[in-house]
């Protein structure tokens, strides 16, 4: 049953090979663009994650609220805020050490040592937000807590950048979807032409009792085959292109925060997604085409 449909699907592609090739090329172009976008957005995602996780809110405790009861209260209040992922505490001594350790040479460190007993640092909480775009609102709510003297975070420019990247990611998704719809449309048109070429045959099939599913199967396979053919080139381009780019820049772009994802198994995931989109696009396109025709057939 399936073998019949598959065989006829292949011979359909063979019979209208010029048409099949042209729509496979159209699918290939679409998938190549989709591939670029997939790579772009997945990198943006890891980059955004890196930036987000490096963004902490430093909460300085007022000198008048350093008792353990007060600090417990402040910590609980912070944890109660929506969007807070993690809270850690650091004493003013730890803060002082951390500050001093920034300096490499002993001399400079020695300059600060006298201040150890009259510590100018605050006790501090370090807060991580669930996502980058929540940092500002979380910071503002923390600032309102009694006993918080100051709140610091990465700054507005970082937040704006993260928000922009989230938008680009969203836009990328819509773009990929739109391209897929375009590819479906292209395949649908090809299959429509092959259907019109076989109109008599379909009518006769229905006359002698072939169900819609039986009639549809070869055309759907034809669409799937076209989709698979169309995904071969983009997959090769993705695998070899990405490896090439990765080796070229040694996996690092712009700064250490923006690392390229290791090619293996990443490129195989991307390839699998491309193949899946190719198959799906072929399936949906041909399915719609035959169904539309069958509806008109008496």
């Amino acid at each position: 049953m399936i073998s019949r449909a598959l065989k006829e699907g292949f011979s359909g592609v063979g019979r209208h090979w010029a048409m099949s090739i042209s729509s496979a090329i159209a699918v290939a172009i679409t998938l190549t663009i989709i591939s670029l976008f997939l790579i772009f957005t997945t990198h943006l995602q890891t980059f955004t994650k890196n930036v987000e996780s490096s963004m902490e809110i430093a909460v300085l405790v007022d000198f008048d609220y350093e008792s353990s009861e007060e600090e417990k209260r402040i910590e609980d209040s912070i944890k109660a805020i929506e969007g807070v992922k993690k809270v850690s505490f650091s004493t003013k001594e730890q803060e002082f050490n951390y500050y001093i350790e920034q300096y490499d040479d002993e001399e400079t460190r020695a300059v600060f040592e006298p201040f150890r007993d009259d510590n100018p640092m605050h006790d501090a909480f370090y807060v991580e937000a669930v996502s980058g775009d929540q940092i500002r609102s979380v910071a503002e709510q923390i600032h309102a807590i009694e006993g918080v003297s100051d709140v610091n975070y990465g700054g507005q420019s970082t937040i704006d950048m993260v928000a922009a990247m989230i938008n680009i990611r969203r836009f990328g998704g819509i773009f990929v979807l739109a391209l897929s719809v375009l590819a479906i449309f292209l395949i649908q048109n090809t299959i429509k032409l092959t259907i019109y070429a076989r109109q008599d045959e379909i009518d006769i099939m229905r006359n002698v009792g072939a169900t819609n599913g039986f009639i549809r199967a070869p055309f759907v396979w034809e669409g799937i085959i076209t989709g698979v053919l169309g995904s071969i080139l983009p997959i090769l381009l993705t695998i070899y292109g990405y490896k090439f780019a990765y080796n070229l820049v040694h996996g690092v772009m712009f700064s250490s925060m923006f690392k390229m994802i290791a090619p293996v198994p990443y490129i195989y995931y991307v390839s699998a997604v491309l193949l899946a989109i190719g198959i799906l696009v072929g399936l949906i396109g041909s399915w719609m085409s035959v169904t539309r025709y069958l509806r008109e057939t008496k």
Partner: protein
Amino acid sequence: MIECMNVYKRYPTGTNALYDINVKVEQGEFIYIIGPTGSGKSTLIKLLDGEEKATKGKVKVVGIDVGTLRHSQIPIYRRNIGVVFQDFRLLPTKTVFENISYALEVINMKKKMIRIRVNEIMDIVGLSDKGDAFPAELSGGQQQRVAIARAIANRPKVLIADEPTGNLDPGKSDEIMDLLERINEAYGTTILMVTHDLTLVNKHRKRTVVLEQGHIVADLAEGGYVRHDQ
């Protein structure tokens, strides 16, 4: 086997093709539908094979209420009936054998079974030696035999034919009639045949229903017909 009860058909274009048709055909009967062009003969066939739905009334074939079938159920229903058309409707790219076996493949019959059945049927219609020929290599009469073979391949209880001899010369028409009569007798297949050919109707006498402008104007059990206006 076939039953039309108060059947009306009006096409979306506004043409009234059939009015108050009442016909009952018993199992094993062989019946002609005759009438001038445009009288609604093909429309009746289309109501029977599910191509069109009656505007009013009920059409029952092999116990199935054809008018209530969904689009997707029509092919399944058609496995119960064989249909033959004036223009044969064979697949030009398939051989005689393949054209016949096709009708059995679509209903998922086993390959081995198909081979046996097709050979048997090619023998019945007298085309045993033409299995590998393509339709274009056959005469009109032979092509119609292939179409009949395809129609009866899965042994339907009912065979309906819309002017099966319409494109054939009188000698070939006679041969097709003989074949249909043999099928009718050998398998007890109920046959409803639309025709224009009064010579045929008068020679092979059978029950004859006469349509004129969408009305049944006569239902002659003993057959034979002479047009009034001649």
